[in-house]
């Protein structure tokens, strides 16, 4: 540990040229670290860096100040090229107090040689307890090779504003702008946008603090970081996965989002509530999760497909209605932004543990479509496909994202919009002579839907077992047949799917299979492992029900297949755990069932996205040098 002198005469800074760098800015909740991080990330993207930003969110709205649990802020990974995940560890941290810094240290978020810029007023506090806490923290941190640079942030801010607490984040942004050589004009544009609802005075004082931080860094910080930038060849947009879901829903032509507030799904409705009406849509905040699902089903039944967004606990509440959508073959799109479970679990943290509940959580036999976007970009595009499949196959389509995608912010190519995405459903043709409510094609199970209001089509839709005419039927023959018809549709969809593409070589020692938000981290890990000489490839699934075709053939070309998932699985070697009683990762259960291949799994539930390095470790553990056995 070394401390830079804040008074030394400025020498030309050392320039560090790196292909990537990861920054964290952490504070107590409400101190504005997130805003600072967001602006820094956005400007970096505009300047041509790859960027992946994640929010560091405390579970409580207003945790007490100066406690590790209250750490709030942003982690921004910058790269020369596109960045697909949040990376491993942080290279530079700005911390507003030593307690929030400790929080990041304790979750092993900081690189061994991380540079830490920390507000040091606590060391000089009149409160002996605070000074003691500071000293204890410094002692705890001394075990690593961090370079800690104390910065008297508030004292500096006080030279131009009365209340330094309010603008400290802009001072910090100034520090980052100098260290990373960010374009100050673009930063000012972003500040103007962020404070567009505030007075000019607010803008001016924020800009003054920004410049103060910049100049302070110029005078006092002895290094700079340069990450090569590349102007994008296509226009890019930058947003988080939840905003992408919202925009995708608009682009798909859906007009009703029925929801009930639940973290981390709610921000989809925050976004939509702001803009949906001008697109001819509404967000209906229902009285509970169940009603939200019921309203969406009612609206879908009455014409255009509606959607509902939720997270694990909400999906559990909707279960009965989801079964009704399947039974009555009413199109419906459900988005589950997964969080940690079971029960209330980890409301703000990522997990991929609702997969089996999504697939099999409804009562009875309830075949439906389940898909998962792998990137923020796919969060947008998946909604268009989801709506189309829901109405084409007359069924429930579940879209599984997670908190990693929901709160991650990253640029992606601006979609080329197409009016065809909003095309009226195929099944809105008038009722044909003698048409039945469920005129199942015996081979495919497909049938045309009848919309209320259509002359000649009157029938009563029912969640009871029913025949082609929607007449309540209890006979075993009819139930067998209608069950087969509903199930068949899923097989038909599978016949239309394209076999997935392997990332890397099509054969080798190990195939890593993933789904959802882990794609970036897995592929980065595979790249690193291959550089080490390991014969590893990966496969990322977008469809979970039905599974994409050809998996068995793909698996056969690898000596070993292993899933990587953010859900819990037992490890062989743990007490009591053996091959027979091992509870496996959810995707591996699915794949074993479908392929009869002995698919291994590696899962972790750390309450944060997976780090590529931990996946590399897992790969190394499964494929010893010299190949799999």
């Amino acid at each position, binding site marked *: 540990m070394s401390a830079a002198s804040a008074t030394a005469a400025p020498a030309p800074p050392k320039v560090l040229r790196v292909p990537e760098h990861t920054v964290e800015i952490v504070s107590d909740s409400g101190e504005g670290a997130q805003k600072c991080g967001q602006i820094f990330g956005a400007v970096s993207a505009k300047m041509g860096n790859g960027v992946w930003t994640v929010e560091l969110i405390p579970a409580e709205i207003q945790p007490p100040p100066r406690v590790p649990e209250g750490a709030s802020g942003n982690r921004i990974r910058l790269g020369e090229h596109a960045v697909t995940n949040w990376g491993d560890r942080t290279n530079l941290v700005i911390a507003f107090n030593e307690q929030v810094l400790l929080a990041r240290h304790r979750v092993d978020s900081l690189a061994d040689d991380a540079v830490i810029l920390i507000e040091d007023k606590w060391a000089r506090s009149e409160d002996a307890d605070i000074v003691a806490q500071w000293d204890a923290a410094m002692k705890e941190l001394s075990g690593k090779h961090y370079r800690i640079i104390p910065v008297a942030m508030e004292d500096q801010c006080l030279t131009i504003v009365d209340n330094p607490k309010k603008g400290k984040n802009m001072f910090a942004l100034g520090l980052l702008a100098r260290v990373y050589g960010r374009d100050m004009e673009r930063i000012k544009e972003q500040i103007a946008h962020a404070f567009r609802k505030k007075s000019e005075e607010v803008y001016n004082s924020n800009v003054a603090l920004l410049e103060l931080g910049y100049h302070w860094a110029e005078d006092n910080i002895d290094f700079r970081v340069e990450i090569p930038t590349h102007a994008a060849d296509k226009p890019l947009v930058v*947003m988080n996965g939840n905003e992408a879901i919202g925009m995708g829903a608009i682009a798909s032509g859906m007009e009703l989002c029925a929801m009930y507030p639940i973290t981390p799904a709610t921000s989809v409705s925050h976004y939509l509530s702001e803009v949906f009406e001008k697109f*001819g849509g509404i967000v209906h905040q229902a*009285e509970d999760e169940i009603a939200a699902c*019921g309203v969406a089903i009612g609206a879908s039944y009455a014409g255009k497909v509606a959607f509902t967004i939720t997270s694990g606990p909400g999906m559990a509440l909707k279960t009965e209605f989801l079964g009704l959508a399947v039974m009555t073959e009413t199109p419906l799109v459900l988005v589950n932004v997964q969080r940690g479970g079971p029960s209330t679990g980890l409301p703000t943290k990522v997990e991929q543990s609702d997969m089996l509940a999504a697939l099999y959580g409804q009562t009875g036999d309830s075949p439906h479509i389940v898909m998962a976007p792998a990137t923020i970009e796919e969060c947008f595009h998946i909604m268009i496909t989801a709506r189309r499949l829901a109405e084409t196959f007359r069924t429930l389509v579940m879209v599984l994202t997670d908190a990693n995608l929901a709160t991650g912010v990253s640029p992606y190519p601006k979609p080329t919009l197409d009016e065809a995405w909003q095309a009226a459903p195929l099944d809105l043709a008038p009722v044909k002579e003698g048409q039945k409510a469920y005129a199942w094609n015996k081979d495919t199970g497909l049938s045309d839907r009848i*919309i*209320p209001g259509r002359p000649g089509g009157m029938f009563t*839709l029912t969640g009871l077992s029913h025949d082609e005419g929607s007449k*309540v039927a209890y006979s075993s023959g009819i139930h067998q047949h209608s069950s087969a018809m509903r199930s068949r549709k899923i097989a038909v969809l599978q016949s239309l799917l394209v076999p997935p593409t392997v990332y890397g070589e099509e054969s080798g020692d190990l195939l890593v299979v993933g789904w959802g938000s882990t794609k970036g981290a897995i592929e980065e890990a595979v790249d690193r492992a291959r550089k080490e000489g390991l014969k590893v490839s990966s496969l990322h699934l977008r469809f979970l029900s039905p599974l994409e075709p050809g998996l068995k053939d793909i698996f056969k070309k690898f000596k070993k297949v292993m899933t990587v998932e953010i859900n819990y699985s037992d490890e062989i070697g743990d007490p009591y755990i053996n091959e027979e009683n091992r509870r496996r990762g959810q995707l591996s259960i699915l794949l074993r069932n479908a392929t009869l291949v002995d698919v291994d799994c590696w899962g972790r539930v750390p309450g944060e996205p997976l780090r590529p390095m931990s996946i590399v470790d897992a790969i190394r553990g499964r494929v010893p040098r010299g190949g799999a056995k």
Partner: protein
Amino acid sequence: MSYTCGLLPVLDQHEDHHYEMSEYEGAKARWCPGCGDHSILTAVQRLLAAEQLVPEQTMMVSGIGCSSRLPHYMKTYGFHGLHGRALPVATGIKLHRPELTVFVTMGDGDCTSIGAGHWVHAMRYNVDMVAMMLDNGIYGLTKNQTSPTTPQGFKSNTQPYGSILPPLNPLEVALGITNASFVAQTAEWAPSHLYATLRAAYKHKGFSFVRILQRCPVYTPAIYQKAVQDPARIQLLVHDDGVVTPDLDKIYQSQLHHDPRDLAAARALAEQTETIKLGVFYRDPSKPRYEETRRVAPRTPAERVALLEKEFARYAV
């Protein structure tokens, strides 16, 4: 889209077609003989014929229970959904298709127990529909379990030593809900009153909550029997803006002139349970309706794409 559907009756020359009551009849009703639901079904069919409602523009939405089988016995569009959840479905239908006429049938368990939350909020939303709560004070379909409106002391399969709690008063609850716009009570054994009440409910623009007292011949034949046999136990609330049934004047001589605009009086009347009061307790046509306040101008695909381009500009790198 609703426009297109709304125009479609033209296809089937409905223009001059006069619907007979029989044209609203669906499958043959399979309720028990003597069940009050038969009378309610007839009143609904009579109302549809009187108002000449176009069958395909009419929706019957229900939950689960004896009463919720009603849609099957109508020749309109029907949605026989989940126990307690008829109202969210009906709300969703109206949000996308306000031009459809929606009737909801629920039982007492449906409405005041498992679906009580939806009931409260549906009344708040005040979406234009007729919500009929067929109250026989018992779970009938599942064979004799206590419901929230079961009289205290009544012996059922779940409370064999007598219902433990005093019954819930649905009228008091309904009249306590902010933005309630229509609350009425009628009885299946007074067909002309039932019909007139449903008609008033249909005419009311907003969420019309009608509690229909209904006898279950198997499990609760006795709970309303005294009132059925002794008209003096019934008091009619009459008003030009509510329900008037001159043909019942001779039978029900106890009548009270009650202005349905008077909420305080309505609440006081709902509290009084010595006599059964039939009529419109409360009506306020000026209450905002959710499907109207949430109405948005539709957009064509081209307009949406143009607006979305602008939206993406906000997120441009």
